[in-house]
């Protein structure tokens, strides 16, 4: 039905007189198109323009992809978080320099044993509708997100708070209660949080927008609130969210928190196509774009000069291995697979050097990342790989590679990996299992994959622990488990100081790298570009996207 579109069908017969004496006119048209084609003539770069002065006021426009929800607990989409980050102050935020937790809506967050935490609410905080931000505003928001039957997207982030299991019965039954046992509202400004186990990284977790407080209006009309969220942040909604078109924010009148905004207004224009958004940025109708398509990297660098930036994000790609399949059981074989992959070559050929080869299980911007932690295992050493491969007894049968079809680059790099395994290790029988994300998810979660698969991890909070626990913790997809690894993680979680906990996490990472259930491939980097109208652009790897409140506007 939908393919019946004639305007897109390529091979339809043209009229009987097609092409007769069409030569000269055709040539003229092609010449005209070429003359006008973009890229042939360079636009004058306005790199020489100084940054806009740091005066408050003005408005700027950010390109965005349609979010799913604007209520903090209902979403984990980075597009939604970019907006929510302007509308809400979560309890803490992360320092842009090194990712450590800094109080925001909270005045302080303390614990003696890493298990019982006391959150003191910053006095005088208010929502945009005047309602005061109290300890209860946090408790009701967290309870709603943790309550399974609400089906909120951030539900899993609350799993470490005592009482989570009661709100999420495994058999899908109705929970006996609607409140987390681990949350206790002591008074208006004090919230006591009890976790199921000590967790030293808890303050970082609280920077995630799902932990922001919600006013009572969020529960009287949830659908209306999702279109017009009332937050406690530097910006307030300016009219409703116009789905697929725009979201407008304006300076929140009574905001007295720690991040007063510079610009008066922020407009988000919603695009389906990133290419179209980039075109609008080039046309000067959009001021900021957080994710320039990788294919436009060279063009962006040429057009935007110093107003184009590439920096490592927290996202990593891995090749996961099905350890329940005996053929993948030997760590030597897994290391051989890893050494046969030319990470630098692939990031250069397929990602225009926008991605960086991985040398550790965690992304480069994470405090505690050790350059070269993976050592020779992640270096491209085809000869050593072949030797190790043969020593491990080689590989029999078909090697199946699993990946989703959501992005064409997945197939491109999987093809490159397959070719390298063929050439360097002599595995000739390789087939692709390419399918939709909806199909692949259940296969991987059910441990039904019979070959290596694409595993991606988007970091929740900048801690080595987040990668290790998320990827290789309880019930992970690879089927790998190691008590020494679990112990090291638990010791890190219970440690009193950050330095001490990182040392334990490093022990855990070393164990995982030695056994290699998961082969690190590359670290994603965010490409951003912005117009000469705005300045003080801080794209923070730790918090979603652009720091809206810091941007200054030429006006």
């Amino acid at each position, binding site marked *: *039905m*939908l393919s*019946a*579109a*004639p*305007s*897109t069908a390529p091979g*339809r017969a*043209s*009229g*009987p*007189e*097609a*092409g*007769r*004496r069409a*030569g*000269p*006119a*055709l040539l003229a*048209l092609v010449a005209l*198109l070429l003359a*006008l*084609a*973009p890229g042939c003539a360079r636009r004058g770069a306005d790199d020489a323009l100084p940054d806009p002065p740091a005066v408050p006021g003005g408005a700027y426009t950010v390109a965005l992809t349609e979010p*799913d*929800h604007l209520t903090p607990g209902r979403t*984990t989409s980075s597009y939604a978080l970019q907006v929510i980050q302007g509308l809400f102050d979560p309890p803490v935020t992360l320092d842009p320099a090194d990712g450590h937790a800094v109080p925001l809506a909270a005045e302080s967050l303390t614990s003696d044993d890493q298990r019982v935490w006391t959150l003191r609410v910053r006095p005088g905080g208010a929502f945009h509708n005047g309602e005061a931000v109290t300890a209860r505003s946090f408790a009701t928001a967290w309870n709603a997100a943790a309550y*399974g039957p609400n*089906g*909120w*997207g951030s*539900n*899993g982030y609350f*799993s470490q708070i005592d009482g989570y299991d009661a709100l*999420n*019965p495994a058999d*899908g039954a109705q*929970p006996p209660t609607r409140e987390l046992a681990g949350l206790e509202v002591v008074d208006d400004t004090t919230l006591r949080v009890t976790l199921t186990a000590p967790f030293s990284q808890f303050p970082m977790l609280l920077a995630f927008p799902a932990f922001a407080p919600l006013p009572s209006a969020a529960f009287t009309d949830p659908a209306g609130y999702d279109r017009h969220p009332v937050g406690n942040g530097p910006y307030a909604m300016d009219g409703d969210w116009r*789905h697929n*078109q725009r979201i407008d924010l304006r300076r929140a009148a009574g905001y007295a928190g720690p991040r007063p905004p510079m610009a008066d207004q922020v407009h988000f224009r*919603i*695009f*389906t*196509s990133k*290419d*179209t*958004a980039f*075109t609008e940025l080039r046309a000067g109708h959009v001021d900021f774009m957080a994710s320039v398509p990788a294919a436009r990297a060279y063009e962006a660098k040429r057009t935007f000069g110093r107003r184009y930036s590439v920096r490592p994000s927290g996202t990593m790609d891995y090749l996961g291995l099905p350890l329940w399949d005996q053929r993948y059981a030997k760590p030597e074989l897994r290391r051989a697979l890893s050494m046969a992959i030319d990470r630098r070559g692939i990031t250069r050929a397929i990602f225009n050097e926008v991605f960086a080869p991985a040398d550790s299980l965690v992304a480069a911007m994470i405090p505690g990342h050790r350059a070269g932690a993976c050592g020779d295992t992640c270096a491209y050493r085809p000869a050593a790989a072949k030797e190790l491969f043969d020593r491990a007894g080689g590989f029999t049968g078909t090697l199946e590679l699993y990946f989703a079809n*959501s992005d064409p680059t997945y197939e491109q790099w999987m093809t490159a990996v397959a070719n390298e395994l063929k050439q360097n290790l002599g595995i000739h029988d390789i087939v692709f299992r390419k*399918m*939709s*994300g*909806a*199909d692949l*998810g*259940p296969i991987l*979660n059910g441990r039904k994959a019979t070959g290596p698969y694409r595993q*991606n991890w*988007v970091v929740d909070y900048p801690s080595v622990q987040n990668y290790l626990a998320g990827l290789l913790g309880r019930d992970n997809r690879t089927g790998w488990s190691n008590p020494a690894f679990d112990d090291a993680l638990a010791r890190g979680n219970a440690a009193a100081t950050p330095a001490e906990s990182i040392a334990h996490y490093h022990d855990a990472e070393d164990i995982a790298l030695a056994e290699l259930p998961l082969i690190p491939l590359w670290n994603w980097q965010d490409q951003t570009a912005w117009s000469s109208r705005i300045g003080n652009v801080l794209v923070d790897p730790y918090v979603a996207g652009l720091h809206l409140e810091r941007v200054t506007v030429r006006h």
Partner: protein
Amino acid sequence: MGRYIARRLLYAIPVLLATTFLIHTMVFVLPGDPIQGLAGDRPVPPAVLAELHERYHLDDPLFARYFAYLGGLLTGDLGSTFTGEPVADTLAGRWQVTLRLGLTAWCLETVLGVGLGVWAALRKGRWADNTVLAGTTLVIAVPVYIVGYLAQLILGVRLGWFPVSGTEGGWPTAYLLPALVLASFGVAYVARLTRASLLENLRADYVRTAGAKGLRRHRIVLRHTLRNSLIPVVTFLGVELGSLMAGAVVTEYIFNLPGIGQQVFQAIQLREGPTVVGITTLLVLVFCLANLVVDVLYGLLDPRIRHE
């Protein structure tokens, strides 16, 4: 004629039932789990998964789901998207965009296409004719997304004659460029169809007779030749009205127009059953109506074709 139209409208009912059932089956038989697909590489907690499956009836058997959908349809309930919005509401916001785009494109096709076709036919073999032939060949040969991106870059960004994307310019400003791109293939096709059909009829005996009895040239062309030459063109333009609505997927994507083409593209990616079925039903209705109008027009253009 009235009975004919009534009968044709009744035919639309089984067609609608069959298409909705077919689409339901196709969405249903796809393996996998759309909710897990939404979450990417992060497992969804089992309690949340169970809740969302129940909310969107993902575990119901095919017939139960289909009849529940039909029941909902009778009360105007088209189901809801995975973000919990009623499909009827999202369609209400979007159909106007697609309709404006489709009708603008359709008008361009009719006026430009027929105009160019007649112009070329009357100047057969001269430069005007050759230019039309070359231009239409080029347009038919180039895929619509290339035409779209080029038009956007040249006419939108470099020359600044049109808005680059979005609907904020309102109708007709914001719709002209995308409609032109959407119509490009159709304009070329209609021009060729008109030209060929007109040339054939201009050679007919009755045209010579009309000329011999002294009728003026433009009267011969407009009253006697063009009218019946337009039958294949009307057939094409009729079906085209439906196709333009469905074919807007690419154009709406490039020009960032929040219409139903863009929505069906997203819904298929997310495997949002109710949205896909809802939009498809709407498109089938448009196709049925367009076909009916075409058949009625036949009788008006050529009295030899009658409907009983």
